[in-house]
């Protein structure tokens, strides 16, 4: 009964929405034009990065807060250490992973730097860093986390704190996250570097924390 109702509702919803979507007048506000017009003042050349870190940088600030928060919630939910044994890993794989990890870090740095003028940026770079960590974890070179040490916590929150500091600093001089055009590029790079490290750690942490009940030591 419930199934039928939900399916029926979903179908009606799709039909209704599709019907309404197809005869739409052009939007009255064209933000891509505004983005293009203000791009020179944003400090970066890639419009998506400009929106992410300058025009709507505040969204990004809160979004990093969400990510950090999810990390903390996972930490707070309770640690349990049920031990079991994982099949041992092929040493060839380990060697490959050791080779791949530095490469991936280089890719991350490239993506971070490239974000200023072409697709890429802190998110993608952070994701690659995280992927490297996950890889190392899978071949048992990096243990799962128990409860993070102070240094690790600093790494996790560091990027967010840099972002916050930049925000607070700009707020004291004017508006929140208002970069002076001449320093905008450098400030954004600073924020992005911090974010890359922290994002990498947090994203990796999400994985490493979740897989902690596989019995690896701290």
């Amino acid at each position: 009964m419930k199934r039928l109702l939900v399916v029926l509702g979903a179908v009606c919803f799709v039909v209704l929405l599709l019907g309404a979507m197809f005869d739409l007048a052009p939007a009255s506000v064209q933000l891509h034009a505004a983005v293009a017009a203000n791009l020179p003042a944003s400090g970066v050349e890639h419009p998506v990065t400009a929106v992410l870190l300058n025009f709507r940088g505040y969204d990004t600030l809160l979004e990093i807060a969400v990510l950090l928060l999810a990390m903390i919630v996972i930490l707070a939910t309770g640690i349990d250490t049920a031990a079991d044994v994982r099949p041992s890993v092929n040493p060839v794989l380990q060697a490959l992973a050791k080779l791949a990890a530095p490469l991936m870090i280089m890719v991350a740095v490239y993506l971070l730097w490239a974000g200023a003028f072409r697709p890429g940026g802190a998110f993608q770079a952070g994701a690659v860093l995280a992927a490297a960590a996950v890889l190392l974890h899978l071949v048992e070179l990096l243990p799962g986390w128990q409860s993070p040490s102070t240094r690790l916590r600093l790494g996790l929150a560091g990027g967010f704190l840099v972002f916050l500091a930049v925000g607070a600093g700009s707020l004291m001089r004017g508006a929140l996250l208002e970069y002076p055009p001449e320093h905008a590029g450098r400030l954004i790079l600073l924020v992005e570097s911090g974010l890359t490290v922290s994002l990498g750690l947090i994203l990796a942490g999400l994985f490493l924390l979740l897989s902690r009940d596989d019995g690896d030591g701290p």
Partner: protein
Amino acid sequence: MSLEFIFDLLLALAMVWSAWRSLSASRLDRAIVMFIVFGLLMALAWARLSAPDIGLAEAAIGAGLTGALLLDAYGALKRREA
């Protein structure tokens, strides 16, 4: 109907199909694999929507990390069951 549009149409169908399978597959591991496939198709779609940034992020985070998390969770469940 241009070639591009046919490609888009096929992609769209594949996305809906993979999403459907990822929710309806009877085996959980298949469902997760289908979901990762879905994520990769999403990345393609983003590329088609001239949004390479999202495509990169979707491939790395949406399909990659989420997939890894799901597979790991699946593995943990399996190990516990055993």
